[in-house]
């Protein structure tokens, strides 16, 4: 394998991976290959099998796909900067394109960009594909990229990735097909960052999003916030081996039972995010497949270090020892989870610290720790909600373990409505749910940096902050991993975030629906399935 040193993935790299598999490359080889790209592999094990399966089938054109997600709201939007729910992502992915995206292995793949190059990881040159047009016929140029990127820096846009975009200090069009992005500090992850859903490319000057004028595989035909959207194939799509479907209909069925029933009755082709308990039913049905992928998604218990009882020495460690991870994995998640060790980098990531052992379930040790903290027998309110996947059940498991050692956890289940704004980050002890992020850098900056916007436990460590900056600019994988390894240990031991398991995502689909692969960015091929899947007759 060729060590290219600096990330500059091209389309050819895709073929390389596939080629490698064909040649019977070992897993280790492949991992090395991915590492070389600086991409994190978040979905290792499952992908390989899937990739091989996908290879065998031949795409068929035509058909109308009906797919259901799980969340929808009247705030549904076609503005990629504001997208916040899975339905937004799926819709946006089908009508817009990003400069790069991540494939099923987590590798960076070029989309609208032809090449992304940098010599110092600070100044990046993005070469754009030529001959791409928007739905309204306007050719795609560097001005569109500049406009799309600059929007995120404007406070008034209300962009969800404003804090990440801030590191881009200058975005300039060098020529019609070249853009230069200058970062405040070196960051080797930029190609991966550009694969985030919010960095989709819109036409220069767009302020009205109702027509969703993108370069994507589908054109929006009908969009009703909170109800559904219908997309039809963009016949001028620049990718030739994509967009097999004639049309694509997407909506949300928030009730999981209803979602499964709709799939079973043949009303929809794919139901996203299936609960572990529904698997038994689905597995008995012929013509229905499950697509599982373990990504970096997790539900964690946050104990704020600056509030009672998290500020009492021993409490947090006690809770971490009292979490019965095996029961959570087996009973709550029915095996659709990997046991975690209180830090956010999943085992699928090349940066995962395998040396860091999972804490054993040790009620006696926990009891001693609680006793030391003077909290034994004190009633501790724990805020949980259906908004954070499985958090109520996890809380119940914790509560039960607590009851055995005389520790009272008082579960406060609160409505999903407003959970993220009213309880998350605010309650002394509460659950959170973190979606997969492509790089350790994003995870740590978002969640553990002293000034992190979502510093769930108010973890503040100058040493950690310094290491984060150091790693970001470190171009050598081994050195970088070394830093990240230590940071994982710090988070696991010092932060108030107990991460019991990494959750697997399960989509259930009709076997007619082909071409669906797992993706580290989330279910339904990282929400981008529309252009890759096809319907068998």
């Amino acid at each position, binding site marked *: 394998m060729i060590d290219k040193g600096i990330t500059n993935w091209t389309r050819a790299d895709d073929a390389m991976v596939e080629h490698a598999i064909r040649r019977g490359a070992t897993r280790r080889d492949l991992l090395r290959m991915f590492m070389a790209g600086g991409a994190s592999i978040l979905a290792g094990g499952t992908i390989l099998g899937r990739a091989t399966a996908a290879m065998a089938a031949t795409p068929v054109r035509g058909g109308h796909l009906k797919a259901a997600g799980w969340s929808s709201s009247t705030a549904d939007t076609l503005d990629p900067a504001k997208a916040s729910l899975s339905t937004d992502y799926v819709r946006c992915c089908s009508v817009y394109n990003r400069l790069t995206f991540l494939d099923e292995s987590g590798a960076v793949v070029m989309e609208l960009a032809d090449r992304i190059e940098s010599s110092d990881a600070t100044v990046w040159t993005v070469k754009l594909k030529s001959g791409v047009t928007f739905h309204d016929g306007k050719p795609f140029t560097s001005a569109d990229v500049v406009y799309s990127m600059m929007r995120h820096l404007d406070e008034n846009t209300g962009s969800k990735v404003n804090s990440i975009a801030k590191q881009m200090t200058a975005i300039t069009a060098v020529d019609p097909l070249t853009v230069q992005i200058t970062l405040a500090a070196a960051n080797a992850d930029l190609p991966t960052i550009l694969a985030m859903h919010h960095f989709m490319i819109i036409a220069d000057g767009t302020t009205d999003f109702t027509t969703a004028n993108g370069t994507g595989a589908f054109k929006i035909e009908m969009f009703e916030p909170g109800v559904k959207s219908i997309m039809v194939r963009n016949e001028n799509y620049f990718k030739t081996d994509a967009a097999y479907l004639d049309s694509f209909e997407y909506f949300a069925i928030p009730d*999981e*039972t209803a979602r*499964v029933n709709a799939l079973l009755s043949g009303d929809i082709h794919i139901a996203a995010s299936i*609960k572990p*308990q*529904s698997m*038994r*039913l689905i597995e008995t049905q012929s013509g229905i497949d499950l697509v599982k992928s373990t990504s970096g998604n997790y539900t964690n218990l946050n104990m704020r270090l600056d509030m009672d009882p998290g500020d009492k020495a021993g409490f947090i460690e006690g809770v971490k020892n009292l979490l019965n991870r095996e*029961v959570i994995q*087996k*009973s*709550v998640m*029915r095996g659709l989870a990997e046991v975690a060790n209180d830090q956010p980098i999943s085992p699928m990531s090349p940066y995962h610290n395998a040396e860091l052992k999972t804490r054993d379930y040790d009620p006696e040790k926990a009891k001693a720790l609680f006793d030391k903290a003077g909290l034994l027998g004190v009633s501790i309110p724990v805020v*949980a909600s*259906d908004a954070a996947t499985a958090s*109520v*059940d996890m*809380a*119940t*498991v914790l*509560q*039960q373990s607590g*009851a055995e050692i005389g520790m009272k956890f*008082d*579960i*406060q*289940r*609160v*409505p*999903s*409505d*407003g959970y993220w704004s009213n309880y998350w980050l605010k309650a002394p002890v509460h659950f959170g749910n973190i979606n997969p992020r492509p790089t350790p850098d994003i995870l740590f900056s978002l969640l553990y940096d002293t000034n992190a916007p979502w510093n769930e436990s108010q973890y503040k460590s100058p040493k950690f902050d310094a290491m984060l900056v150091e790693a970001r600019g470190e171009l050598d994988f081994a050195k970088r991993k070394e830093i990240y390894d230590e940071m994982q240990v710090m988070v696991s031991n010092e932060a108030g975030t107990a991460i019991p398991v990494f959750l697997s995502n399960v989509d259930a689909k009709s076997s007619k629906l082909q071409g669906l692969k797992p993706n580290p960015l989330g279910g339904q091929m990282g929400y981008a399935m529309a252009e890759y899947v096809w319907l068998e007759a």
Partner: protein
Amino acid sequence: MHTKAFWPTPRRLGYHMNWIGLIAATVVCFWALVAVIGPMLSPYPPGEIVDFDYYGPISAKLWMGSDYLGRDIFSRVLMGARYTVGISLAAVCLACISGVVLGMTAAVVGGWLDTGLSRFLDALNSIPSKLFGLVMVAAIGSSIPVLIVLLGVIYTPGAYRFARALAVNINTMDFVTVARARGERTGYLVTREILPNITGPVLADLGLRFVFIVLLLSGLSFLGLGVQPPNADWGSLVRENIGGLPFGAPAVLMPSLAIASLTISVNLLIDNLPVKIRDRSE
């Protein structure tokens, strides 16, 4: 509406009840008893995971199978009785007491108080109950007192309307007029003259309202508002285990049966209330 007005007070034992009423009364008493002593009988703590399987079948160890986490459904149903029956009963009492007191007062006092109260409660009644519940729980959070007050408030206008209609009828009776002519105060009129004459229908109404509250509580639980875990009312039990319905899992059937048996029994009991034997041989 036709009502079984004017029951004589029970002084002598002399009631007659048909067999449907007896069966219904037995079931209602059974659940009332379970609500009181049930949790003492439960074999496992309601939150404990006792089975690694989920939606397990009925077995000697687990009398009603296991739920989606592998918890004992029998224990959870026993514990749920306390919440479902308790919350509904408290709410129905709250609704009926406030509704009946306000209704009688409005009927007796009349005038602006009557008009004002009627309009206000009518307005309250016009808001769909489940949505009202959702908004209020979103506003003040879900806890047992909140649920009780919420359900009580939702059903107060109905109780008010019913009691007021009855009280208006009684209020025109001469014995109330006599009491007025005697110079009695409103408090006396309401408690001693009106109330005893509407208790029969009000009790029947209370029973019906109880059924509605049980169902609404289940509905609210279904929409995600309810008792805090590890406890759960029956509606929550059905909701959290509804995925077991395709297999006919006892985890979902048992709490459903519990709800249905309670509500059907209360309904039947009201339709077949004991009748006092009052043969006047003159």
